[in-house]
């Protein structure tokens, strides 16, 4: 069932076997999986079924360098479904190398291997509605996918790895009926958790305090608690709950909130392909199951090891929209229509330079002189995106010439100085807001810069294409700073480690030193991979559900709480 905390009376105590905090992809996945065990599941979501400004303000906070990182209330919708409500849908599994302790990368290495996660990827793919768990371009589509560049077989890159696209699936909308129908699940919306209450010896979570939107307080007791509110709210709640653990829960070794990673991502370069236009394919192929698939140009793991780099991928991309010299009508039409695009998407597409009247005019001329491609693009967009349930994933526009740019999406290495802390301002419940101090390292820049050089060399070897930095790109670091931290990827702030010295949670996601508190989501990832996090968030949530299921079966009579009772 789905209830609203607005109907709760002051000081009510809700009981459940397992309490999950946060109704994003991790929380919803956990709830649906754990409900199969016949356990009572209480899922607390601060937001409503639809986004609302008043609750979104709870995510406000400070950013150390606003040029590098978006405000904390962006990309983090407080709503049932969480980040999937604005998700682009890109699904990519992590690579085996991501889990290894790499001598050239400090703080790398997971306490579990790739196989541990891989077994959950097929089910995660299903929940994300991204079709089969098949990420090889030769097998994902019957007959193989079209090559990005005909005849291109680079030495340093694997061109057969792909990304698959979810519908994109808004977990709150897609699984609402299931959550509502399941007798073991109770979703409580508009329920904001304000504090975790620890037992006097600090070894257990006795309960948590929450408030509804009207400020009515209530509490929850449960056998197990799972935090699944995302990589910023999790450290915030752990650090805020400092009545027994004075440094915050799980923070005895000062790890909570540190190692904050996103991805080093953006658009770079000017790539002139030699040969006919049909020798290039930078769009999507459709698998038999209906999913859109796209090739990536992935830095080979042995190259990463040999050169001491992080993981990275490239994709062919249309020329930068803001630069009217592309003379491509549809791109200029997007520029002109930027105020109709949400902040989260417009930031990437058009935000790098303030528009001037001259730029506007030049884009207007482009759109007017290329009317047929503009109309074709718009018609396709309306049919395949606006009206479709499985949406065409992104803007794919053939430039008039064979001139492209490169999308890059690279691993950001773990860095203890990149961190989420508590700021000075408080929210309306009196809790301190987050302060984001996102930092990149020399190795982060090196990964992109060296990969770019390697790709340039591979493309030049058989005169496939020539790749240069664009005129307004003096070096890679400028490009990285221009695009900043990739929005919406909040990784590593409660990292998994082999011991409390290196991690906040153990290999199962349980907080070191606290017996019944687990963390789900990308906060536990010790490294960030080249891959977007959502698919792995769902896979790790499935793994955690399995683990909690095993515990529940082992100690069926150890429940310390009764049956779920109605509120009020």
């Amino acid at each position: 069932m789905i209830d609203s905390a607005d109907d709760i009376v002051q000081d009510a105590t809700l009981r459940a076997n397992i309490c999950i905090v946060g109704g994003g992809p991790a929380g919803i996945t956990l709830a649906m999986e754990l409900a199969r065990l016949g356990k009572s599941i209480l899922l607390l979501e601060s937001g409503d079924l639809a986004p609302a400004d008043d609750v979104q303000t709870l995510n406000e906070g400070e950013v150390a360098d606003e040029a590098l990182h978006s405000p904390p209330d962006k990309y983090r919708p407080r709503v049932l479904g969480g980040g999937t409500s604005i998700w682009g849908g890109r699904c990519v599994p992590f690579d085996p190398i991501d889990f290894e302790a790499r001598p050239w990368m400090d703080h790398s290495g997971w306490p579990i291997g790739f196989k541990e996660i891989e077994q959950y990827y097929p089910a995660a793919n299903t929940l994300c509605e991204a079709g089969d768990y098949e990420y090889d371009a030769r097998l994902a589509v019957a007959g193989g996918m079209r090559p990005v560049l005909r005849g291109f077989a680079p030495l340093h890159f694997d061109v057969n790895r792909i990304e698959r696209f979810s519908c994109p699936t808004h977990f709150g909308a897609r699984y609402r009926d299931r959550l509502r129908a399941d007798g073991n699940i109770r979703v409580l919306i508009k329920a904001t958790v304000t504090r975790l209450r620890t037992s006097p010896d600090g070894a257990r979570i006795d309960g948590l305090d929450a408030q509804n939107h009207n400020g009515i307080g209530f509490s929850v007791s449960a056998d197990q608690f799972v935090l699944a509110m995302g990589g910023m709210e999790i450290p915030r709640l752990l650090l805020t709950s400092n009545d027994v653990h004075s440094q915050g829960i799980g923070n005895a070794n000062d790890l909570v909130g540190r190692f904050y990673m996103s991805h080093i991502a953006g658009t770079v370069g000017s790539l002139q392909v030699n040969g006919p236009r049909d020798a290039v394919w930078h769009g999507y192929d459709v698998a038999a199951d209906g999913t859109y698939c796209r090739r990536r140009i992935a830095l080979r793991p042995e190259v990463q090891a040999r050169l001491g780099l992080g993981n990275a991928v490239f994709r062919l991309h249309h020329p930068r929209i803001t630069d009217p010299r592309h003379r491509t009508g549809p791109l200029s039409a997007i520029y002109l229509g930027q105020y109709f695009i949400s902040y989260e998407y417009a930031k990437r597409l058009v935000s790098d330079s303030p528009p001037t009247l001259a730029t506007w005019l030049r884009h207007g001329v482009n759109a007017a002189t290329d009317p047929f491609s503009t109309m074709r693009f718009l018609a396709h967009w309306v049919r395949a995106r606006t009206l479709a349930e499985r949406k065409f994933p992104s803007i794919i526009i053939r430039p008039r010439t064979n001139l492209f740019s490169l999308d890059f999406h690279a691993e950001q290495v773990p860095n203890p100085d990149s961190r989420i802390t508590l700021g000075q301002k408080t929210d309306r419940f009196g809790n301190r807001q987050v302060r984001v101090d996102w930092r990149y390292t020399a190795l982060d820049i090196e990964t992109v810069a060296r990969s770019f050089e390697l790709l340039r060399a591979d493309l030049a070897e058989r005169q496939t294409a020539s790749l240069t930095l664009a005129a307004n790109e003096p070096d890679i670091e400028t490009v990285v700073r221009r695009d900043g931290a990739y929005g919406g990827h909040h990784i590593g702030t409660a990292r998994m480690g082999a011991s409390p010295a290196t991690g906040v949670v153990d290999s199962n996601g349980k907080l070191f030193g606290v017996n019944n508190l687990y963390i789900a989501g990308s906060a536990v990832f010790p490294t960030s991979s080249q891959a977007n996090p959502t698919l792995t968030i769902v896979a790790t949530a499935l793994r955690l559900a399995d683990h909690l299921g095993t515990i529940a079966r082992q100690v069926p009579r150890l429940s310390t709480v009764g049956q779920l009772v109605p509120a009020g």
Partner: protein
Amino acid sequence: MPDSIDFPRKPVLVLGASGFIGARVVEALSAGTSYQPIAASRRPKPGGIVLDATNPAAMREALRGAARVVNCVAGSNEAMVRSTQALCDAARGQPPGRIVHLSSMAVYGSASGSVREDHPAVQPVSGYGQAKIACEQIIGKYVRDGGDAVMLRPTCVFGPGSTQWTTRLARLLEARRIGDLGSAGDGCCNLAFIDDTVAAIVNALDAANVAGRTFNVSSSAELTWNEFLVRFARSLGATPVKRIVPRMLKLETKLLAPARKIAGKVLRGPATEAITPSLAALWAQDIRIDSAAAVDALRMPQTTPDAMIAAAVQWLHGVSPATRPEFAR
């Protein structure tokens, strides 16, 4: 008439023998050595007998000499009830050894969760479901009066020959009117493979300790309608599978279905195949039919979904358009 020990093959009267399941039962009985089918229907195939099952006198006549009866009569709700009544009335005068009566999962109505045979009906129950309940009540009374009957409740009978659940769904998938239905297809897909269903019927004719009992007949594989439809579409080659927009499905059930049905009175074809509200409701219904009892007592085989789909696709692709069954109404 007592069980005939003089005949090596027991005569089995199959009512509704020209229908999809009836014809397959006749085929199976003919292929075996224990039974001699008497194929009865309103428009019999060669070798069958003409029977209007709603006619009590004709039913009495047909029952003469039958050692077993399989009741597969389909048709209007009224015809099903009247023929079941005629059968039980006739059988009271001259009891056959056993009646195997085909009911349906529709008797459970809107039930959800795991459903065994003792599960009560949950409203709303479709008109078809209500008719099947009425038939079961008639059979129930016959049993209470001392008759021997076994009731089977198949789920969606799937496989070669099935117009309702094979040809129809294939056509809709090929036309991309259905596919991946999103949350509208999260319901549990309960399919009964035709061969498994026929085996359950044949085994019920003489199984011990089943008199008066009722059995669910279904595959026990757990899969959602979405999973089934996507697998079926891929096997058919109806790819890429389309994700159906919820408002299109609503438009189909609310607006187009009545129009298609009316058009179907005049001409038949893919365009007149309606997606009715009850069909759409089934795709979303979280009902898991538990058929463990039939597996146990009737030795019902359990064909896997992939094998079922493979057989269905082979049949669909092998059948020429001329002999392909007409669309189900």
